[in-house]
């Protein structure tokens, strides 16, 4: 007798679902336009008050700073899409930044690609551990990554001790990476844009990419539909870890000085960027392009505040307020959407 209840609960009204998807699609595309509009407005207003804001070097700085965050946002988006969260990325970045940069001190003349590979390996190792505990251990990702945030930072502290890597111990070719430009645009920004585009293409057009959305929209339905949820979530954490490892090497190249606090608190800024970029914190919708724009918007805001002479002590509060505003906005949009759909459905019924 209980069997009859099941299909009713699971069966969607097919026609309405199609409409709903189109509507949702539209709203989120508009969301990305919205970010670009806010960005343009911000740049215009700031530049009209303080023209220095539009200096080529300042724009280059913003773009280079954004690359690290946009990369991290790419990984975080994959995880958040599946209705999970990764709080460990700042610590992974810190560990990778120190260990990879330290290679130059221990092995002078080591080829730079090898250092990037090392960073990737460190990130992957962290991602494997976190994915394993989440998927096989069945521990909520919040708990796993909160623990990992401090465990990995603690390992970092034990490894680094009181020491640090300084810029003078790094080869010039390495330090120059973030400074190289192509027609005035930092090459790093171009590469990261390409990576984000590839990520967007993957999530849009690949079966396994679409499955991440399915898992986030309704984990139970996804499992019943035969999607290998465990494997996909594991993969998402792997990507997030790998990306954080690479971002760590970039961080080292960008800042040169690395101690055991490198990247602490980055997870909060990245989650803020991802959510501001329109990725739903409940999972199931959003895009990496939006997340990258969210990262760009956040960096531009911080830079604008700096140029306008606002104390950098305001940065963190602003990131927090943006995060809260963005999730509240998302909630508002989804409520509006739901009521619109309900109205449409009653029209169809009548």
């Amino acid at each position, binding site marked *: 007798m209980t069997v009859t209840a099941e299909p009713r609960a699971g069966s969607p009204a097919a026609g309405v679902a199609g409409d709903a998807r189109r509507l949702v699609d539209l709203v989120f595309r508009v969301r990305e336009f919205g970010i670009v509009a806010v960005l343009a407005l911000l740049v215009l207003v700031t530049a009209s008050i303080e023209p220095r804001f539009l200096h080529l070097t300042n724009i280059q700085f913003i773009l280079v700073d954004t690359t690290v965050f946009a990369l991290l946002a790419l990984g975080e988006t994959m995880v958040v899409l599946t209705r999970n969260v990764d709080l460990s990325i700042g610590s992974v970045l810190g560990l990778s930044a120190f260990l990879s940069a330290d290679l130059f001190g221990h092995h002078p003349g080591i080829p730079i690609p090898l250092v990037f590979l090392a960073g990737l390996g460190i990130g992957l190792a962290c991602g494997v551990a976190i994915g394993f505990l989440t998927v096989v251990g069945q521990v909520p990702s919040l708990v796993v990554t909160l623990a990992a945030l401090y465990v990995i930072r*603690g*390992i970092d502290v034990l490894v680094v001790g009181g020491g640090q890597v300084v810029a003078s111990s790094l080869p010039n070719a390495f330090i120059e990476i973030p400074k190289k430009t192509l027609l005035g645009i930092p090459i790093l920004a171009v590469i990261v844009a390409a990576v984000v585009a590839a990520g967007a293409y993957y999530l849009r057009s690949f079966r396994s990419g679409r499955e991440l959305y399915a898992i986030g929209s309704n984990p139970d339905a996804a499992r019943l539909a035969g999607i290998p949820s465990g494997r996909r979530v594991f993969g998402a954490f792997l990507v997030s870890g790998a990306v954080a490892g690479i971002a760590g090497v970039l961080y080292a190249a960008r800042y040169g000085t690395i101690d055991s606090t490198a990247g602490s608190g980055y997870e909060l800024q990245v*989650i803020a960027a991802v959510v501001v970029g329109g990725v739903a914190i409940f999972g199931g919708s959003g895009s990496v392009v939006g997340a990258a724009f969210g990262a760009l918007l956040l960096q531009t805001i911080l830079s604008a505040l700096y140029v306008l002479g606002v104390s950098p002590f305001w940065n963190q*509060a602003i990131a*927090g307020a943006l995060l*809260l505003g963005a999730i509240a906005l998302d*909630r508002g949009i989804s409520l509006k959407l739901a009521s619109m759909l309900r109205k449409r459905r009653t029209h169809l019924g009548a």
Partner: protein
Amino acid sequence: MALDLRQRLRDALRWEVGLLFALAAVVVFGVDASSQFLTASNFFYLNLSIGEVAIMALPMTLIIVTGEIDLSVASILGMSSALLGDLYHRGLSMPLAIATVLVVGAVAGAFNGFLVTKIGLPSLAVTIGTLTLYRGIAIIILGPETISTFPTRYTNVGVTPVPHTGGYLSYSIAFFIVLAVVFAIVLHATPVGRSLFVMGANEEAARYAGIRVRRTKFLLFALSGVVCALAGILYTFRLSTAVQDNGLGLELSVVTIVLLGGISIFGGRGTIVGVVLAIAVFAGLQNALLLTNFEQRAMGVVTGGLLLLSVLIPNGSSFVRRARDVLRRRALTQEGAS
């Protein structure tokens, strides 16, 4: 029914008994690590080091029992500390400053509660946001300043034992004991407490049963805010210092203690007794490690490990139980077939 009750009692007690064994192991480890471990002065130091975290663990217990979480606790502590320092520095009298800080703490907690219950946002996302926001406000209030000109009458509260306790008991732990008794009675012996468990086990059922889920959760978040502000005041007096990063990262310790105490992260299960035992285990372990000259800044490795274990172990046992059920059912169906 009676059998069910006995079964449930056994299920609940098993975790607490495990914690007792863990506590015994920690004491053995501590005594082995240093001859100072069992001295009165070390016990007092241990009291001091865990007091604020222990206090914050109580409202967190109730919040996690209802199936929510509050990651902003350490930021509310930091914001309260910064505000207390700033208000006093600006010439406000200490009692007035303390009252203001407690009110601001309540407002900060109520804002969490508002976003969760009125706007309907997930508490995880909300409190990650306010974790950032409240710490950000602490940074705005104090910037790089350090305020350490508090009157000794107040800072003594932070560093001297409660009189007539043989020098064992810190004021923070005295506060904690009083609060723990109140929280235990409310959670385990009142209708309100029962309703918290129901909310955590099945929110929809709770609503249909006429429990005011939203209002209760809102009040819990506000309560958590006040209690964290109190912890912030004690923290400030203990260190005689208000800086913007006071208590940074303590949310990990608080969540670890609550989950180690056997409160289910999915809500609906756990006891205050378990949390109190977990505090003892946690504080003892940390103290013993520090006596062996363990790097304090790397303590996160231990805390994080404990957090993982306290969720992995019950998961593991439920995994075993599920596997056993499946095997038993299969055996039964085979019997039926033959």
